[in-house]
Every structure is written in structure tokens, then in C-alpha cells.
């Protein structure tokens, strides 16, 4: 029953986000701040993880290619497919549920327990619009982050393949272009947009409706990470079934 209440309240919150808009000049500044906090500050960790995971994918594929009849290009092909289709959009989004999601829940949750949200409401400001819409708009740039993750993942695979002596540069570049289906990129970015919305709104919901004090802020961050990850994984399954199934 509480799950149904939560889902209903989440939907109402989403509806309210787009009502009684905040003044454009104020909203513009808020969006830039959120781009800085949510996207730019995540660049480092995304680049680091993507590069090394891409490398590991290449090494694992190479080590499992025991059959001499299988072409070496398969290493690049496997790295490309796994990075573009799943690793960059889904795996990075789950990591972002931890990084960006906890940040959103704890920052909004702290505003709730310190009555800053009440202060906004008393002033006649639509607090969900003021607090959550800038995050949703900032997260529209999230696919850009995922594009960087894709690039870094493939670069990591290339470096690991070449410097590990598993594959030549020519073989890698040939394998990278082999049987490339452009729709796979579209599929990856469509689901990235959905994940971006989930990443902005589910943690915001957990922070906004928080009750209690500092301890509850910590608990809400954990709960928000779990639910954001669960919803991302389920959405990934549904979207994959719809587009590729």
C-alpha cells in the first residue's frame, strides 16, 4: 500500500514541477548551478571508470578468445557493443544513482529538515519547481556525459588491446567499424534520456518528502540509491525489449 502511495505522490510531484514556474532569470542561474553540480563535477569519475572498464572488457574478451579461427577484431567489436549498448548508458547511470542521486536526496532532504523548503513555500514559491526543474533541465546534458563515457570506454579498450599485445591498431579499428548499426546509438541515447529523468526525479522525491532529522537524511540517500538503481534496471529491461527485442 505504501508503494502505491509513493507512486501516486511521485506522479503528483512530477505534475507540480511544471506548474507555477519560477522567474526565468532566477531559473537560468539555478540551471547553470545544477549543470556544474550534477554534470561537470561527475566528469572525472565517469572518465576514470569508463576508461578502465573499457580496458578490462578488451582484456577479458582477448583472454577468452582461445579459438584461432575467431578474428582478433572481435575484441574491438565486443568492446564497442558492450560499451555503447550497456556499459556507458546503464552501468554509468547506476554509478550516477550513487553519486548524483545521493547528492540530490541529501541536499533537498537537508533543506526539508532545516525548514528551507517551508521558507520557499511561505514566500509563495512553488518549491518543487524551484528545486527539481533545474535538476531535470541540467540532466538533459547527461547524454553528453554518456557520450564521453562511450568514447573513453572504447579508448580504454584500444589502449589495453594495443599495449597488452592482444590486437594491432589496424585490427582494432577494423573491428570497431564492423557490423556497426547506427540505431544502437539511438537506442543508447533514448534510454540515457530516460535514465537522466529518473536520476533527477527519484532522488528528489526521496529528499523532498523526507521526514525527520539528520539520520533520516542518510537513510533517505541510501533508499533513493536503491530505488533509482532498481528503476533504471527495470527501465533498461523494458526499453531493450521494446527497441531490440
Amino acid at each position, binding site marked *: 500500500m505504501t508503494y502505491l502511495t509513493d507512486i501516486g505522490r511521485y506522479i503528483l510531484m512530477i505534475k507540480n514541477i511544471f506548474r507555477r514556474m519560477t522567474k526565468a532569470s532566477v531559473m537560468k542561474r539555478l540551471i547553470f548551478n545544477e549543470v556544474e553540480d550534477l554534470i561537470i563535477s561527475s566528469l572525472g569519475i565517469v572518465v576514470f571508470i569508463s576508461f578502465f572498464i573499457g580496458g578490462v572488457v578488451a582484456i577479458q574478451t582477448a583472454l577468452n578468445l582461445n579459438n584461432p579461427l575467431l578474428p582478433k577484431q572481435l575484441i574491438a567489436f565486443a568492446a564497442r557493443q558492450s560499451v555503447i549498448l550497456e556499459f556507458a548508458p546503464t552501468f554509468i547511470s547506476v554509478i550516477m544513482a550513487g553519486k548524483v542521486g545521493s547528492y540530490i536526496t541529501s541536499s533537498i532532504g537537508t533543506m526539508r529538515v532545516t525548514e*528551507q523548503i517551508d521558507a520557499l513555500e511561505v514566500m509563495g514559491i512553488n518549491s518543487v519547481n524551484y528545486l527539481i526543474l533545474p535538476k531535470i533541465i541540467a540532466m538533459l546534458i547527461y547524454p553528453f556525459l554518456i557520450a564521453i563515457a562511450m568514447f573513453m570506454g572504447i579508448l580504454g579498450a584500444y589502449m589495453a588491446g594495443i599495449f597488452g599485445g592482444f590486437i594491432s591498431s589496424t585490427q582494432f579499428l577494423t573491428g570497431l567499424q564492423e557490423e556497426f548499426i547506427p540505431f544502437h546509438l539511438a537506442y543508447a541515447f533514448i534510454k540515457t534520456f530516460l535514465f537522466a529523468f529518473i536520476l533527477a526525479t527519484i532522488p528528489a522525491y526521496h529528499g523532498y518528502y523526507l521526514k525527520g532529522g539528520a539520520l533520516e537524511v542518510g537513510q533517505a540517500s541510501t533508499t533513493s540509491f536503491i530505488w533509482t538503481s532498481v528503476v533504471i534496471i527495470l527501465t533498461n529491461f523494458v526499453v531493450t525489449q521494446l527497441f531490440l527485442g
Partner: protein
Amino acid sequence: MIKVENIHKSFDGEEILHGIDATFETGKTNLIIGTSGSGKTVFLKCLLGLFRPEQGSIHYDGDRYMDMSEEQQRELRKSMGMVFQGSALFDSMTVAENVMFPLKMFTKQKITEMNHRVKEVLDRVNLDGADDKYPSEISGGMQKRVAIARAIVNRPKYLFCDEPNSGLDPRTAIVIDNLIQEITREYDITTVINTHDMNSVLEIGESIIFLQFGDLKWTGTKDEIFKTDNKTVTDFVYSSNLFKKVRKAQLKGL
């Protein structure tokens, strides 16, 4: 003036306010007092429009809140200022930005005009030189002054304060109480203060209502509260040792 009639408010089936009637006059510091759990904060949040009472009505200068459209209610809220118990300053903004916030949100003033007004109210609350500091870098008393400055910057008609001097030392608490009273008279606004501090009652209790377990038990002034025979009120008023001694002296005719 704010007039409240028969306000009832429940949470999860439990009634917290059992039909409160009260009048808060303009130009006076109106106090809501009572023990913890008496429903003071719920009542104040009903006045602010943060909670919607199930029954009863609230009139702001004759206009019934419940009859107002959403737009009218929002406009009314722009004429309210609120000082929260914990100040509720925005952590990510400096003192000046916090005070300027309502102006940025609701006026079309130029930045020079806004800066001028911010300086004016910060001077009024005797807070100079803290403009660029963040709330975490200033003391509790200074935070309260910033909260008052933010509440009055847009020239409100109604000022609400939830335990404005909680967590402050007695001297700072009196300064804050007096500041609120001065501002109330100077701006001729309707001020409603939620408190359980007897020093505040002594200092600024021009009009007092006493709540207990969601019921209105007594109304009067600071002079009357020390003369009342209402046992519920006297139990509350004379609960501290200092006031007990005062009571004993009173009874002995000293």
C-alpha cells in the same frame, strides 16, 4: 489584522487543534504560548497556509483565506514574512543573497535598488559587514537577524515568528524580541510569535493566547498573565524556579 475562527486540524485521524478562535491585531506583537506539543507550530503553519485546516476559517484583513483562489492565496503569501525556529536560511547563499532572495523572486527592481534595500534592512537589524558571509559562518543570533531581515525586506503586512529566540543566550534573545517589536510598530504590521519563553512574554507580550493540547485555554496581555487565576496558565507561567519565587513573593504581597 488576522481573525481565526474555529480552526480544527488533524493528522492521521488524530485531532491536534480542537476549534481555536483568536484575533491578532495590527501593530502589536501577538504571542502564541504553550508547552511543547500544545499545537502552537501546527496552528502557526495553518496561519501561514502550509497546513490546510479541516474546519474553520482564517481572515486576513477581512479576506477569508479559504475563499481565495490559488492565485490570490499566492499573492497573500507574498505579503507574509516568516522567521523560522532554525532561521531556515539558504545554505548556498550569502547573507546578502538570502535577504535579496524575495526581491529577486517577486520584484522587477534593478540590482542597484535591490542592493540598496538589502543594505537598508541589514542596517535596520544591526547587521553590518556580514553581507558576504555564508549562514554557516555567522552566529545563531546573527542568523536570526538575517532571517528577520529576509522576512521584512519585501515590506510584508504579516510577520510570523516560530520561537525566534530559541537557542540564543538570554541577552541576545531579548535583543531579538525587542527588534521584532520595534519592527512591528515601525512597519505597522501584524506580528504573530510562537514561543514558550516566559522572558519573551514579559518583554513583548502585548497580546497573548495560551494553547494546551490543541485547545485555547486563555487570552490576555503580559500584565494579565501574572494575575490570572487560571490554573493551567499559572502552572505554565510559574514552572521555572525564578518565576516560582516571583509567584511566592506576589502571594505574600511583597
